């Protein structure tokens, strides 16, 4: 049986000595003797305590409420409660005490829900924040320091002595905060500050990495296991630098007035708690790591799911469009047929011809949009379009289409010229009465180092000469990607040729604008099918 001397009396511990050294300490039982007139200063129980009073009388304050201590009285004090005792009698108060260190589930210390809102990079900060809400309940003094000793967070309460003497809450000047954290070692460290307070340092380790230390305890022991003067104990605390100059005896008495002389069980309970907190922080890091990885995976999965959903939507819309087109086409062309017959009946030959031209255009545009066609077909389409435009401007519009025979065989994106010509009508002619269009296409032989020849297509319109701002604006519009008119042309050219094409917008010889496109010459299939692929796949 071991006796621990205290300020206020002593404790006879009722189990073999080595029971306290294991890390998995659980129950401590002892007989507590409190000398007459002595006071147990207010302190926090970090362990559950069960007290059975054997002899003597006094008043105890449990969580601030006075309790009468007399023989036979039984008290249960939960972990975290404050306790104070005065022996007002003339004989010692003797009570049985059984205490069990707080079992805090380190996992419970982690506020996992809150962890999701944590954005800090530094793992330790993140872990501290996650664990902090639980600290407040436990009501102990601690400091968490980083791996190089810097103070990261302090608890909100410290022993009154520390607050008064070192201003520990407001500054970091206290020697305990300067105490080296073992120089990067990853083992526990217990020391006594110059003023006689025992402080534990527990490292926070994660994946072989030292994240920091949690430093706590701030207890006073005159003769405990962790007190500064026990030479044989394995947990021999170091004495802080500069301590030699301090008169420990003098301070010991000062401290004794200001700090509860802590029984070993309490001290041990505290150390256990600190270890558990360190473990909780480590667990958080592990948890956070997995959480991050999971989040990343979820993100990329949901991204690809989103993309897939978008594609499916597009596909469905396209399918609907195509189906709708098919249904309506029948109706459309039969109606046009009837209209053509009516035109002939009433002698309207030009009306008849216009209906035929319109049908040609419509038939052409019914193709699936990203197919490729021989340039020849594209030009036929343009011709039909322009003939219809001539209905609107019978005297004013003249156009010529000159295409080299060979050029007609080149594969080009479907419907890439009409928007350019249309642009001439909406902007190029600028309301001028006379409208002239010149469309040319030719094939150039391959040059040095080129495998294929080139296709040159130019569209020239009359009108006011195009200015630099205007041609710049047109170019911007083409590259805007807003899927309208000219930008569709650009997108189609890109999809078909990648970067191997070239467009130029210049003022014409004396007037208007000349739009030139140069692209690789790829021979087209004889019969373009209804769902073509990009050019250059062949």
């Amino acid at each position: 049986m071991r006796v621990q001397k205290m300020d206020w009396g002593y404790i006879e511990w009722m189990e073999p000595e080595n029971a306290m050294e294991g890390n998995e300490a659980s129950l401590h039982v002892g007989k507590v003797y409190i000398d007459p007139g002595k006071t147990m200063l207010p302190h926090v129980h970090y362990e559950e305590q069960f007290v059975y009073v054997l002899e003597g009388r006094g008043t105890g304050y449990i969580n601030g409420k006075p309790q009468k201590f007399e023989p036979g009285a039984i008290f249960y004090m939960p972990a975290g409660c404050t306790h104070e005792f005065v022996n007002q009698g003339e004989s010692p108060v003797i009570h049985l005490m059984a205490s069990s260190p707080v079992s805090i589930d380190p996992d419970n210390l982690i506020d996992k829900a809150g962890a999701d809102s944590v954005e800090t990079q530094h793992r330790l900060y993140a872990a501290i924040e996650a664990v902090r809400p639980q600290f407040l309940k436990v009501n102990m003094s601690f400091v968490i320091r980083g791996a190089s000793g810097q103070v990261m967070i302090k608890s909100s309460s410290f022993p009154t002595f520390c607050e008064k003497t070192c201003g520990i809450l407001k500054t970091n000047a206290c020697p305990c905060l300067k105490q080296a954290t073992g120089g990067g070692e990853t083992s526990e460290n217990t020391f006594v500050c110059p003023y006689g307070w025992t402080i534990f340092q527990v490292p926070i380790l994660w994946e072989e990495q030292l994240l920091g230390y949690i430093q706590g305890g701030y207890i006073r022991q005159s003769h405990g296991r962790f007190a500064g003067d026990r030479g044989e104990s394995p947990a021999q605390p170091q004495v802080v630098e500069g301590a030699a100059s301090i008169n420990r005896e003098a301070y010991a008495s000062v401290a004794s007035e200001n700090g509860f002389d802590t029984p070993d069980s309490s001290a041990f309970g505290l150390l256990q708690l600190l270890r558990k907190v360190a473990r909780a922080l480590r667990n958080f890091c592990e948890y956070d790591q997995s959480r991050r990885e999971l989040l990343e995976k979820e993100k990329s999965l949901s991204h690809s799911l989103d993309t897939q959903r978008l594609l499916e939507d597009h596909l469905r819309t396209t399918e609907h469009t195509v189906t709708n087109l098919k249904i309506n086409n029948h109706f459309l062309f039969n109606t046009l047929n009837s209209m053509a017959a009516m035109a002939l009946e009433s002698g309207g030959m030009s009306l008849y011809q216009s209906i035929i031209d319109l049908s040609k255009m419509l038939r052409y545009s019914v193709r699936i949009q990203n197919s490729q066609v021989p340039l020849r077909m594209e030009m036929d389409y343009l011709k039909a379009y322009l003939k219809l435009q001539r209905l609107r401007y019978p005297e004013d519009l003249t156009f010529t289409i000159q295409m080299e025979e060979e050029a007609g065989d080149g594969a080009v994106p479907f419907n890439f010229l009409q928007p350019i010509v249309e642009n001439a009508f909406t902007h190029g002619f600028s309301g001028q009465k006379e409208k002239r269009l010149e469309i040319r296409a030719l094939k150039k032989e391959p040059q040095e180092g080129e495998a294929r020849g080139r296709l040159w297509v130019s569209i020239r319109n009359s009108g006011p000469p195009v200015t630099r701002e205007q041609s710049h604006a047109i170019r911007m519009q083409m590259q805007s990607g807003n899927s309208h008119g000219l930008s569709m042309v650009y997108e189609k050219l890109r999809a078909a040729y990648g970067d191997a094409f070239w467009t130029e917008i210049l003022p014409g010889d004396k007037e208007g604008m000349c739009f030139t496109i140069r692209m690789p010459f790829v021979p087209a299939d004889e019969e373009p099918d209804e769902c073509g692929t990009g050019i250059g796949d062949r």
Partner: protein
Amino acid sequence: MIKTIICDDEPATRNIISHFLEGENLPLEIAGYAQDGREAVRLIRELDPRLVFLDINMPGLNGFQVIEEIAGTSEAKIIIMTAFASFQNAQQALRLGVCDILPKPIDFEQLRTAITRAVGWNFTSNETVNLMLEYIHAHYREGMGLEDLARVTYSTENHLSRLFKKYMDTTILSYVHELRIEEACSLLKSRKCDIQEAAYQVGYGSLNNFYKYFKRYTGQTPAQFLDQSAL
């Protein structure tokens, strides 16, 4: 005149084709008009036309079914018409041996081309000349002369010669010889018969004449032609 029937449930097609027949002097004669598949089959069997315009989408039997029904019993050339030509339609038409496909609304140029292909020879805008051409194409393999043509067209030989020259830019006889030699070439090329057989087939009684005209229109002797086509 080529006997023709038009099968379409909508009158527009018939009106358009009739309009062009009259206006452009196409050598067709509209003998009947069907508005559904069953009637089409009946008319074809009854009238035995040389040319049939057939809409794909008709009530009763559709165009393809009509073709299958009359297979074997009719030699008519078929031109099908459709509002919306899909690849499937085209493929099926091809397999059924259809002569041509016309998209609606009927375009005159396309109509002309289809008829020319169906008829087999280039017709003109003159009825008499067309009559002559029809006869020539039907009988050039036999011995035939101007007097036959005059008989058929109720005209004089002189008149016919002049008319033909005007529209065809060649004399009747030249045209006939050309036709014959053309066919001879294709016969020789396909190895269907030897030189003598070929000459006989295309309507030359004497080999000498055959050689003469062959040389004139191809620049080679039949033997040389044969050799060359073997390469």
